């Protein structure tokens, strides 16, 4: 099912949809195709994309993780509490936040491996535990105070465009590029990536071929945790506040973006390109509705419709040749 360019039909379809919507929007709204709008869009959807990269790997491995919003907020909260009033740089922020995320992710991995029930159940439990403890210990207090170096952010190759605003490679964009490249290399160029695909396709067979299932699970859920921590720094740099209850319910938005990209929920099937296209489609849709001045009441309806149509088309095309 792969053509000469190596692009799958589902990705082609997503790409065309994005082009059609984007084309329409550039006619309908003069603001859409401006450098400023695209730049803001990339910055604002950086966190979603980073989390989607993590969840993509978990889904490929045949698992699912619902607990990552809690991991993101916890990593972020601890990181911001520790760096308050310090001198330092973003390397420290990433190390702290990513380290905590990694640890929490590995807790998930151990539980998924030892308790042998579907990972959705394990991660619902850990979501409750993580969130409950965080909200109890922090009493829901928001954090506002950041050290100066954090507030300044990062801006490489800064320039002032004709519209009078400053543009450049922001922390969000640099992190986004690194994460996409890293995820792509892991899943397409390394043996770990191939083993994760194999495990998602058939765990029993992968285990008999001598793959260390536990090690792979540690890697997969650990990576999701790491991405949560990284997303925590990015989110913090964007909004410069930490609200302990801000990401409740966000897990399903990220899941929607990833499955929109054609990643199978039973594992083994899906591509990073598809995931990114899924995220872009969601972002362009929401941005377009905003620019066209369509009431925000419609946004969720449109998003829901797109998800239902997209997952139905994927399922329908894979359905042929199955027994039932």
């Amino acid at each position, binding site marked *: 099912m792969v053509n000469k360019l190596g692009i799958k039909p589902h990705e082609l379809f997503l790409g065309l949809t994005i082009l059609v919507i984007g084309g329409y929007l550039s006619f309908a709204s003069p603001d859409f195709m401006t450098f400023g709008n695209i730049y803001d869009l990339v910055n604002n959807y950086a966190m979603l994309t980073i989390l989607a990269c993590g969840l993509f790997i978990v889904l490929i491995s045949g698992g699912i993780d619902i607990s990552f919003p809690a991991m993101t907020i916890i990593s972020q909260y601890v990181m911001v509490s520790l760096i308050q009033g310090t001198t330092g740089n973003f390397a420290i922020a990433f190390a702290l936040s990513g380290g905590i995320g990694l640890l929490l992710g590995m807790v998930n991995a151990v539980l998924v491996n030892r*308790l042998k029930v579907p990972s959705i159940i394990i991660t*619902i439990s850990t979501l409750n535990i993580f*969130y409950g403890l965080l909200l109890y210990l922090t009493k829901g207090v928001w954090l506002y105070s950041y050290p100066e170096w954090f507030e300044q952010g990062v801006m490489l190759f800064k320039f002032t465009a004709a519209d009078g605003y400053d543009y450049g490679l922001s922390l969000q964009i640099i992190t986004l590029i690194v994460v996409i490249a890293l995820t792509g290399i892991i899943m397409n160029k390394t043996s770990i990536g191939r083993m994760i695909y194999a495990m998602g396709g058939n765990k029993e067979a992968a285990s008999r071929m001598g793959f260390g299932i536990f090690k792979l699970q540690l890697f997969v859920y650990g990576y999701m945790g790491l991405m949560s921590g990284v997303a925590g720094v990015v989110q913090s740099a964007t909004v410069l506040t930490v609200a302990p209850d801000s990401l409740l319910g966000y897990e399903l938005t990220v899941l*929607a973006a990833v499955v929109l990209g054609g990643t199978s929920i039973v594992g083994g099937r899906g591509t990073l390109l598809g995931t990114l296209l899924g995220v872009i489609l969601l972002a362009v849709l929401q941005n377009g509705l905003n620019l066209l001045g369509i009431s925000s009441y419609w946004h969720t309806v449109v998003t829901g419709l797109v998800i*239902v149509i997209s997952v139905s088309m994927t399922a329908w095309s894979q*359905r042929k040749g199955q*027994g039932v």
Partner: protein
Amino acid sequence: MSARKVKDNVEIYLSLLIGLVVITFSFLIPDIFWSSANFQSIASQMPVLGVLALAMAITMLTGGINLSIIATMNACGLVMAWVATNYPPSIGSVALVLLAGLAMAIVIGSVNGFLIAVVRVSPILATLGIMTLLNGINILISRGSAISNFPDYILAINSTNLLGIPLPLLVFLAVVAVIWVILEKSAFGRTIYLIGSNEQATHYSGINTRKTIVWVYILSSILCVVAALLMMSKLNSAKASYGESYLLVSILAAVLGGINPDGGFGKVFGMVMALILLQMLESGLNILGVSSYITMTLWGGLLLAFIFLKGINLSRLFGR
């Protein structure tokens, strides 16, 4: 492992956990825990969560899941609220309210069932999409605000006591009885368990698995109508965003009640025990003045502990 043994373990462990909770609270807060106020509080909280957990559980028995239960409850609630506040109270309008709710539920359940059984979208994705879509429609039609000030016949559900027992609790027990008969005494129920054990084999044995799955999702949605009525009566309003925190808790309650998330195993009795356990814990901790966040943590921990215990082979522990 046979179905029989799974069931026994579940009930033993749940009894042990309930015993532990009762003893702990009897020592810590004997006067309040055994007060009628505490039982009233449990009785008023259990029905909504209980009905929603059953709506989740019956889809899990087929190996599916229904992430759209809360959105379905709110959609049915809003439709019923609109009818109830726009027609003067009469027998006819009571019937109209119920019919509107049921019609909405049947439409939603059929769409979910169609996507899962015929288009063969995985249940998580189908119900996730429908959940998002319904949430959007709910907000759109209600403009995000609540519909309130219901006629007396809706408020009466929450305030009526029969023989000292609150009506919502009786409604819950009636729902439990109906679901018990459907699941454990009817041919339809047997098919549900068979599909959860092995859908392909059930299909090849000549059973119309598609039809059964569609009906399971319709039944699940109809239970959401009951939850909607209880919720409306309790809060005297309907809103697009009510009860969102119940979604994951209802999965938690179902699994704690011994429903195997892969399908095929689990009994109604275990679920009722799990709900009693969760509500006793919540109510007791609440009286003790413990933060509700700690309750949230404990529920998650309890589920993990329970899964861990269930994995231990009892007969090996006690010799043979």
